[in-house]
Each structure stands twice: as structure tokens, then as C-alpha cells.
């Protein structure tokens, strides 16, 4: 489990996050939602050690974060960080050389699933296909946790379905997934839990099935409530 306890983040005098406590269990998908993206991306960056909390603690499987623990996490940013001149095969070779826990078998399976070819030039691929290369590179690292930042933006419906299908396999294998997205309808029936960040604080955190059972509401319904409250102020 990845656990954030009383996390606070200040950039200069500006509060970005205040007193955030949440956990990302294995075998479940946790969805970070909110009307603006600053807090969500900061949380992912902090888990990856790219920025540090002003106060509070982050642990992974009970250990306070240190560089060796990052092997347990695969962070898939919203845009691929690969040189345009590369082919898909070059990108795979680059990742394979860089990551100890690279899983070649999975990379080949995903190439096939996504109908990609090693000889494809990255700069010639469509946005959807580039999104799939990005997913392929991130998911072929054997990690216990996967952080997905806006995996569906600009991706066509069929590719979305394929990405969700891959996520599902990861859940079956017991991986913990943290995802941020604006495309909520993709996740209403798919995520286990939602954490709603508003003004840098956790506005609500809930299990989606419980929310449907007790209040008959979707994530979008809860977001609408936040929005109308904000307008009423």
C-alpha cells in the first residue's frame, strides 16, 4: 500500500495541498478527481519523489520513500517522453536498457494487442497510437503500483477500451493503480475508490460501489455538487 499521511505542499507562500491523507491499496484502482489538475499532479510527483512535501509522510509498503523503492512504481505521464525520431522498437530497447524490471514478454503482448510494430516511427503515429506506446512502455516495467496521469486524453474510444482492458489485467494481477482523468464515464464502473481534491484539500473520499448503494450517486454527481457549492459562495 502507498500511504500519504497529513501531506502539505507549499510553493512559496501558496498552498497547493493541505493535510492530505489517503492510501492506494494493491489490487484496487483509486481515482484522483478534482476540478483543477495542480493538486493531482503534485500528489503523483510527490509519490515519485520529483517534488517533496512541505510536511507529512509518504510510505510505500510501510517504508518511508527512498530511491530504491521507486522500482515498485511505474509512473506513466500524460505525454510520452521519447525522442520523435525513434521507432517503437528503439523506445522499447531504451527502456529495457534503463529498467532492471523490464518485462519483454509483456511488451510483446502489448505490441500485439495495440496493433503496434517495432518499426513504427514515433513521429508518424497518431495521437491515439502514441498514447498506446506510452502505456506499453510504462506497463512493461514490472512494478507493484502504477500511476496513470490522464491516460485517456485525446485517445479514441477503441484505444480507451484496450487501455482499460490492460488496466483490468493489472488489477487481476494484484497491482495498485492510481489514476487521474477528466474522462469520468470511463471510470464510473471501473475504479474502486475516488478521492476528490478541491482547493488543495480532500473534499470527499469514497468507495464507488458504496456511494451507489447509499446515495445512488456517481463521481460526476459529486463533482457537480462541489461545482454548485462553489458557485453559491
Amino acid at each position, binding site marked *: 500500500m502507498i500511504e500519504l499521511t497529513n501531506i502539505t505542499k507549499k510553493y512559496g507562500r501558496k498552498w497547493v495541498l493541505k493535510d492530505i491523507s489517503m492510501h492506494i491499496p494493491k*489490487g*484496487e*484502482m483509486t481515482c484522483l478527481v478534482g476540478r483543477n489538475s495542480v493538486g493531482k499532479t503534485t500528489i503523483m510527483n510527490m509519490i515519485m519523489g520529483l517534488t517533496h512535501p512541505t510536511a507529512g509522510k509518504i510510505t510505500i509498503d510501510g517504508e518511508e520513500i527512498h530511491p530504491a523503492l521507486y522500482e515498485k512504481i511505474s509512473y506513466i505521464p500524460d505525454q510520452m517522453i521519447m525522442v520523435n525520431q525513434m521507432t517503437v522498437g528503439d523506445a522499447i530497447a531504451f527502456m529495457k536498457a534503463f529498467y532492471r524490471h523490464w518485462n519483454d514478454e509483456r511488451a510483446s503482448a502489448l505490441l500485439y494487442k495495440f496493433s503496434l510494430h517495432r518499426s513504427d516511427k514515433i513521429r508518424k503515429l497518431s495521437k491515439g497510437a502514441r498514447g498506446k506506446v506510452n502505456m506499453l512502455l510504462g506497463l512493461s516495467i514490472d512494478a507493484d503500483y502504477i500511476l496513470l496521469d490522464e491516460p485517456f486524453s485525446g485517445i479514441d474510444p477503441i484505444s480507451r*477500451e484496450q487501455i*482499460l*482492458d490492460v488496466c*483490468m489485467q493489472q*488489477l*487481476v494481477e494484484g497491482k495498485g493503480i492510481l489514476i487521474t482523468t477528466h474522462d469520468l464515464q470511463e471510470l*464510473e*464502473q*471501473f*475504479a*474502486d475508490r475516488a478521492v476528490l481534491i478541491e482547493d488543495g484539500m480532500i473534499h470527499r473520499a469514497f468507495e464507488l*460501489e458504496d456511494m*451507489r*448503494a447509499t446515495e*445512488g*450517486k*456517481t463521481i460526476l454527481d459529486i463533482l457537480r455538487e462541489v461545482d454548485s457549492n462553489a458557485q453559491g459562495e
Partner: protein
Amino acid sequence: MRGITLNTRDPVYEQVMNHFKVLIANGELRPGDEIPSRRELARLFQINPNTVQRAYKEMEDAQLIHTERNYPSKVTTDEAVLIQVREELLHHAVETFVDAIHLIQVPMEEVLARVENRINELEREDDR
């Protein structure tokens, strides 16, 4: 097994359970039939495997299905449970229908004639 159309406001595990109850009541799933694995069903319905797990656990608790160790889960052969499933679905459907009809105060003869018409209509569609 075909896919399923889910609504967004009821718990998914309940919708999955209900789907199975209907298949059992209408005979599409027979007593003793194997049902898809949790992973297969999650993929087929495009839902979270944990949700499927929960639906299967609830169905096991209700003795609708049973699972022996690592074998695929099977539909119960317990006659009493099967009768109860059908009874439950029928009760719920009639209650919902009658409540709606009651609100608009339709005479019994008219309701029965309409029901008969509609059933005939659906049967003709099925025959096609």
C-alpha cells in the same frame, strides 16, 4: 454469455447479480452450468474484477452458485433456491408494474387486456 448494459446509479455488483438471476430464471443458464471466471466476466462486462468478485461472493452466500476449490463456479442444482430466484424476480416485477399502474388508476380489465396484448407482441417478436 453476452455483454450487459449497466446503469450508473445502482451498485454494479447488484446489477451483475440481477443479470445472473434473470439468466437462471429464464433457463439460459441451467442448473449445474459453469459460469465464466471472474476475470472473463470482468473483461466481458468491462467492469472492475473486484466488483465481479463481490457479486460472485454474494451469489455464493445466497447459494445461487457454488465453487469447489479451483474449479469454475457452477449454477446451483438446489430446486428450492431456483424457485426462490424466479419468485423474487416475479414479485419485484409485478410490484413495480402494479405500483405504476395504481398511480394512474386504470381499471383491472383494461390492464389485463393490455398485458395480454403486450405479451403476444413480444412472443411474435421472439418467433421472428
